[in-house]
């Protein structure tokens, strides 16, 4: 029996994907999500920070460090092992789902 899907939304998926290469602060996450999604997903700041708070509360990301930049505090977020496993499992699930549509059709299927 497969484990129940954690219910990752597309936005959460891209936030976690953005953190796979290393810790980032909020503004860098927004820019990286735009890059990874080819401009399709632009996260408003209020939405991003709500998500980061919930992901941190669930142990999927953690705060790596805080630093002062231009007189303002900013936090760097790091994905945890649990979050890493979750986003990779979601990627595999989507890959399998995509393959159902994108795989080459057998010749026999054309005549079915």
């Amino acid at each position: 029996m497969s484990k129940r899907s954690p219910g990752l939304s597309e936005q959460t998926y891209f936030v976690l994907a953005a953190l796979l290469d290393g810790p980032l602060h909020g503004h860098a996450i927004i820019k990286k999500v735009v890059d990874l999604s080819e401009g399709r997903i632009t996260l408003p700041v209020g939405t991003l920070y709500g998500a980061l708070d919930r992901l941190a509360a669930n142990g999927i990301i953690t705060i790596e460090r805080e630093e002062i930049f231009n007189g303002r505090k900013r936090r760097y977020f790091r994905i945890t092992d649990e979050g890493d496993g979750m986003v990779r499992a979601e990627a595999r699930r989507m890959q399998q789902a995509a393959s159902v549509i994108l795989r080459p059709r057998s010749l026999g299927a054309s005549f079915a």
Partner: protein
Amino acid sequence: MTTLERRYRWLMRAYPNDYRADYLEELVGILLDSAKPGQALPPAREAFALITGGIRTRIIAAARGAAWTDGLHKGIVVLAVLNLAVLIPYAGRIPLWLALSAAALLLILRGHVWPALPVAGVVAVKLTAITMGRPWLDATLLPIFPDGWWAGPALYGSGGPIAPLASNVLIVGGLLILAASRRRPRTHSWWWLATVPLVAGSVPASLDIDAGSPTAVARICLEVTLLVGAAVAGHLTADPRWAIAASLYAVPALVALCEGIEDVTRQDVAHATLLVVLVLAAAVVPFRARHRILL
């Protein structure tokens, strides 16, 4: 400080104070970094996300401590608000009982369980006496008609005694449970007092839904808003405290419906169905939300 920064800081008031103390500068910094040169107005999408994010953060921050004691306390607050609201049109006839009902609400609201118990207790006895036509505690002339410009029936004149009794039993019984738990409940916002005039004079048994009376409409609108809010809060937090409060609220309203079953109209049934559906939604949602990470 630019106009844009001032506007972003104003929008950030949607967040709780302690959240703003920690993260206001960080969020405003990112918002300003993302702004176009010369921009003075926050984009609608950012403004909406800040307001909804702030409300979400407030709800999540409210889901702390034991869920069942806080849910019970919230439910008692709502019932005490309605107890007081029912008496408002009769303020000139029963000023003492109105004042004691208001005192009970204030004590309950601020989490003073032990002082609230005797006050809520005597109010419960007096209101039960009025519904049963008994001269308990003082010699009140019955029936009690509304003051001057208030229209409507005599106090509790349009329904039976069981629904008001159920409401008061829940208030006093709930306070006893909270007192026995030895945990002082949290204080609730003074904003709850603002709901009292909105539902003044509304009794579940005499909601004149057919005629679309302003009192009935105001009560049903507030009821739907709070119950949908309870479901949303349960969805965001996977916490049952709002469902507990919603269930407590529904009990006297449904008892009133059963008590007056002979005179029940289709609108009454529709109203009760809506109430049950919303309470069930508020009860189920937290358990479904436990399996999900929400963005």
